[in-house]
């Protein structure tokens, strides 16, 4: 079973993503802040990460950079969830390494399609 890590400080968003993705037979792991997200990513080496940008302590861009510069994790696809806010704009500037950007409020079916695209490509 493919492992997906969902990192977002909004529990409702995490829960709805988890519900749908589990329906598609993915094993979902959840973290509700950046610190836990990064720890969990290193612990379980997921097959894909859905990562929110604005989070307390460590933001999504930073996590993405940390993982993408690590040879052990750099191949994990990262779907970055953004709210297109000004605070986010201020954080950009360096390469984040994310593979895909999803704008809030996103469409669940679209997310599923994107996830399938990356995970199918990987298994090939």
């Amino acid at each position, binding site marked *: 079973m493919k492992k997906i890590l969902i990192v977002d400080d909004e529990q409702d968003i995490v829960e*709805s993503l988890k*519900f749908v993705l589990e329906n598609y037979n993915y094993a979902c792991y959840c973290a509700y802040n950046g610190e836990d997200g990064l720890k969990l990513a290193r612990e379980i080496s997921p097959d894909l990460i859905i990562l929110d940008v604005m989070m307390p302590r460590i933001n999504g861009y930073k996590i993405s950079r940390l993982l993408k510069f690590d040879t052990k994790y750099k191949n994990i696809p990262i779907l970055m969830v953004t*709210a297109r806010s*000004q605070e986010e704009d201020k954080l950009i500037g360096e390469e984040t390494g994310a593979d895909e950007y999803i704008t809030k409020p996103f469409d*669940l079916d679209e997310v599923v399609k994107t996830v399938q695209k990356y995970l199918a490509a990987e298994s090939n």
Partner: protein
Amino acid sequence: MGNILLITENDLIHSRYKKLFEVYEYHYKVCSDTVSLYDFLENAAVDVIIVDNSITSINSVLTIKKIKNKIENVQILLLMDEENQCDIELSRLCNGFISGAFSDELIISVINSHIKNKEKSDIITEKNKELADSLYKLNVLYNTSSQFAGTLDVKKLINYMLEGLDKSLSYDLTCTISFGFENEPVLIINSLYDISEELANALKLRSVLNYKSLFKDGDIPFEIDDKNLKVVKYIKNPMNKFTFDIFEYDNMFAPIDLGDNFFGCIEIFKEKSFTTDDASYFQTIVQQVSLPLKSAGLYNEIISKNEKLEKLERVKSDFISIVSHELRTPLTPIKNALSILSSGRCGDLTENAVKFVNMAKRNVENLTNIINDILDINKIEAGKMDFKYKPMDMHSVIETVRANFDCVAKEHNIILTTQEQAQLPEVYADSQRLGQVLTNLVSNAIKFTPNGKNITIKSELKNAADIDKNPYFRDYLDTLNGNYVVVSVIDEGIGIKEENLLKAFDKFTQIESSLYRKVGGTGLGLPIAKQLIEAHNGKIWCDSEENKGSSFHFAIPVSSESVSGKTIQKELL
């Protein structure tokens, strides 16, 4: 009356002239050698010098030259004997000659006429000096005026005034109360010599009293108190000290004001007496600084208002951005929940449940679009919208948009077709933004077109001259020049009243607001489209006939004629 010096070593001459001088009551002195001569010249006033040509103990030419340098306008008379030969250089240095053969009367008349010459020359010299002085002061005045005109900085203006006064009046001390800096009154003491704490306090008290005396019967514009008045001291020469004698010095005082505007006051002290000219220079300079001080005040007011406005604009922009972000986050789980419900993963829904879930989904979609529009217009207005310009093909944009609307058009039973000119040249543009504009135009067209009617997306290459311009947009479109790819969205909807055509692109203007309410939308779609198209150096406009339909067009310059993306972005900023 006159002061006469006789230079001779001849006793006969000495005794003859001595008698003569005594009879005619001249002050006189006789010298026979250089030592006594220079001793005498050190302190004495001399009008006429009579030099005996036959003297041998003194070098006459050298001596006369020295004397002339020392005493301005002194008259030199050369005393000659008939057999004396006069040196040419010597004769040039002299103002007149006396011969030993002259009668006493003749000698006296020659001396008298030269005393008069000396008096007149002195007067002329004096007047010349006054003139030179006036000229200098006028120059100072002129320079000070130029400096006043060159700045709107209150501190600089006050400094220029004090510099100007120093140069023209060479004051010993000035006390200036100014209200211009940092919104608090300041006493500026400019002093030639150092002043003690006690003297500074006395000057402060005096300045405050002077200031208050200006408003004996009226309201004081600024309340000041000698206890908390801030003092700034500038000392030119700290090696010396002024004493309380400064209050015995001559002084002048003036307010610095213009009409009802009051900027401060100044008192100026000088050991020597001020002349009437000095008084008028003082008045002129102090008055001249008032006008730029007034302008400076107004200027500062404008600056601070501008800063406030800019801050307000930033706050507004930040506010919109934060609110939009905060709205997006809760919208996401709502959307997700609805999507899960309608997917049937939580069990089958009743017919009514499907209806209401769809209603909620539709409205979430609307809300999302509204937030996106507000964010976009906010970004554009703040100059923060990024464009990714590259050469692109308009066909692909049109095809993508048409495909996206296929389903919606079918739902509304609307026939959506494209009519594209083959082989359109490339345009230099951001395909995503053009897609956004076209999406907006098509979705508007669908909103206003009844079921069963047609909507056409048309593209063609046109020269600016061949573009049809209705009278409402003629001026706007007249600036087009060269070749353009023109994209039109033509509907068979309700159309727009002529008088509303121009308003269609205004921010927050809703044509027939009730109608818009029925179909939803922020009224920001077209203003955003206009901004996006204009960022591409293009134009957007519309034609319409009521109840027959509207056509919205936008023109984008073909690649070779469009400017580089960087330039466009700069213009947008």
